[in-house]
């Protein structure tokens, strides 16, 4: 907490009569920073913003430029702090320019017209938000996105050192989202204090300098965006499963929601399927089986293998090994145990060299009825053979021993569902 910060709240409490929604929040916002407030629905992020803007009463200490906000006159507050609402009623047909000009009202005398300077600032704001062509249009004739840009233009023309935005881009299309958020970030760069409530976490990650995460009216995380929004934190606060990756151009974190999860892991009801794959052959298959509700596990996977990345993201248990080396004996032992525990084993045909040949030997020792081979249509075993014929004949031997072989995922599904195999041992998994 810094005494120089333009906005400072301490033990801030706010709500709407019936109860507190913001409960004892202490935070401050720094000049030149674009801070995002994030949190699940009903967490109190908009309430916090409205409490800072003084339109709802609050308890605790709230200071603007080191002075308690309660000492500000409405006009002083209007000159110090701008607010962009998410939406606003449009009961009358004002023109866009008339609405933007309202930003200058508090500075103008009742007895005079608005000045040339007022108009110049408004035209500039219209220009920066790209709506100059709409200036004489009735606000009732605007789309939601155009209206949102008018509200942003109005706050720009208000020319305040602090700008608060409540989901400023919720009605905008992709191009305008980027345009407006870049504009807002530039405002921060030019020395303003900008605070925005975000529903879209990825937008917050891409544009904010700092994120404040709110849950149940309390701040639960505060810091650099990529450090605040970890998959663990998102699961804890939002109850959502995500994985993170990074923006190829900016390097900033991106969250990707996971709809396919290994939800069946550890459950008794769903058949346990072990997928033996490698060299990227099994990634899609792992996702496919997870989506279809199987308790999936994976075999031995090199940590550089894309199959390994998929297994990790989907939280599928597997046996990681170093790439380009002989598979260690303990990994093979582990694979044997997994194979015994699984109800069914799907062998996704993959390149086999001397390094991973022992895996095929283990499979040859399994009961053929529990095995399914997935060989993509139009491919032959020989094209996966890097052992001068040994692997190809091992694959072929599995087929002649009575293992079902299919070329499609639906084929795998049909085999898995049509003929439930009998496990050698009863399951030892604990749910």
């Amino acid at each position, binding site marked *: 907490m810094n005494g120089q910060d333009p906005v400072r709240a301490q033990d801030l409490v706010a709500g709407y009569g019936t109860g507190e929604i913001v409960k004892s929040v202490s935070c401050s916002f720094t000049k030149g920073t674009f801070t995002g407030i994030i949190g699940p629905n009903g967490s109190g992020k908009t309430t916090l913003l409205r409490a800072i803007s003084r339109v709802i009463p609050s308890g605790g200490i709230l200071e603007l430029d080191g002075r308690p906000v309660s000492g500000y006159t409405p*006009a002083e507050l*209007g000159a110090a702090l701008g*607010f962009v609402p998410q939406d606003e009623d*449009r*009961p009358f047909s004002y023109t866009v320019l008339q609405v933007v000009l309202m930003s200058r*009202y508090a500075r103008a005398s009742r007895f005079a017209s608005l000045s040339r300077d007022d108009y110049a600032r408004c035209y500039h704001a219209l220009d920066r938000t790209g709506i100059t062509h709409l200036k004489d249009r009735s606000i009732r004739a605007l789309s939601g996105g155009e209206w949102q840009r008018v509200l942003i233009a109005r706050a720009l023309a*208000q020319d305040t050192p602090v700008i608060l935005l409540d989901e400023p881009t919720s009605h905008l299309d992709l191009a305008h989202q980027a345009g407006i958020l870049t504009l807002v970030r530039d405002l921060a760069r030019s020395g303003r204090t900008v605070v925005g409530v975000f529903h879209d976490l990825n937008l917050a990650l891409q544009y904010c300098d700092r994120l404040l995460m709110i849950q149940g009216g309390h701040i639960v995380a505060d810091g650099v965006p990529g450090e605040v929004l970890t998959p663990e934190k998102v699961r804890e606060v939002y109850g959502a499963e995500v994985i993170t990756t990074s923006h190829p151009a900016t390097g900033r974190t991106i969250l990707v929601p996971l709809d396919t999860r290994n939800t069946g892991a550890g459950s008794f009801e769903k058949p346990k399927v072990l997928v033996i794959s490698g060299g990227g052959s099994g990634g899609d298959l792992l996702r496919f089986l997870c989506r279809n509700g199987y308790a999936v596990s994976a075999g031995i996977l090199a940590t550089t293998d894309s199959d390994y990345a998929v297994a990790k993201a989907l939280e599928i248990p597997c046996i990681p090994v170093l790439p380009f080396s002989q598979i260690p004996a303990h990994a093979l032992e582990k694979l044997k145990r997994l194979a015994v525990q699984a109800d069914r084993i799907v062998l996704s045909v993959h390149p086999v060299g001397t390094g991973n040949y022992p895996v095929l030997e283990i499979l040859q020792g399994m009961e053929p009825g529990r095995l399914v081979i997935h060989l993509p249509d139009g491919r032959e075993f020989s094209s996966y053979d890097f052992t001068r014929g040994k692997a190809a004949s091992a694959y072929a031997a599995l087929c002649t021993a009575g293992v079902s072989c299919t070329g499609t995922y639906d084929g795998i599904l049909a085999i898995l569902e049509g003929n439930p195999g009998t496990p050698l041992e009863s399951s030892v998994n604990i749910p």
Partner: protein
Amino acid sequence: MTRTIPVITGLIIAAALTIIVCTFTGPAGFGFVTTAPGAADIVGGIRLPRVLAAFFVGASLAVAGAAMQALFRNPMADPYILGTSSGGALGASLAIVLLGGLFVPLFAWIGAVAAILVVWLIAGRSGVISTETLLLIGIAVSFFFSAIVSFLIAVAGQNVHQILFWLMGGFWNASMDNAVLATAILVPAGILLFLMGRDLNALSLGEETAAHLGIDATRARWTVLGGSTLLVAGAVSIAGSIGFVGLVTPHIVRMLLGPDNRVVIPAAILAGGILLVLSDTLARTFFADLPVGIITAFIGAPFFIWLIYRRGSVA
């Protein structure tokens, strides 16, 4: 709006012409120069006060209507929305029933102001209140007062006719004093509302918006309500509760000039005055002095519908 200046100028000329022409028009005939015996009394003693009273009452209702619509962000709001007319009706009915018709204007004024005060007190009790709550309290108080008026009508006996006529509104008893009173209220209150024009613009997008734009929304709200109440109570005490002028005039003005209240307020003053003078002249000249409220609605409603139909929009 480039149209503003020509339209306002046109309205000023139309208002002057309306006042002059209507003063020389009536059931006794028309004429600027008349030497008939009693003409001077009819024109100066009866018609002129009546025309002036009608003009200023119409102006008061229209400007209060414009302010209420902006304040409540509701194009259906009219100047009576917080119970002024039912309060005035109650006051007038009490005077008619209990005092045999003495002090009707005074009682109407007291009733109108009392209605607003009741709304204000109830609203003030609940601390910070929204405009919507205020509106609902106003409607509730309005219905309550109307119920008492209905009761008085039911037990009034031979005074029923008098109460009903008062409820429909008219200028039968207009005197120069009425005209002066209406002017004395309209001039300061009209100027006040004009000066609040920008505040009204901001308030018409919402009180929070107004506050974010640096406007003292609470003070602006009560100032506008106070000014409007004085205007409407004055109008009600002079002419009863004349409907439609206060609801429709602001719409007509906005259709012509847009919704900027710095323009709507002065234009509504002129247009409301013109409309009510014309309606009253029609009423007394061709319709045997029917209550003017009948004329305003009878002619105003089709005209309004035609306007909506032509413009395809209301606000």
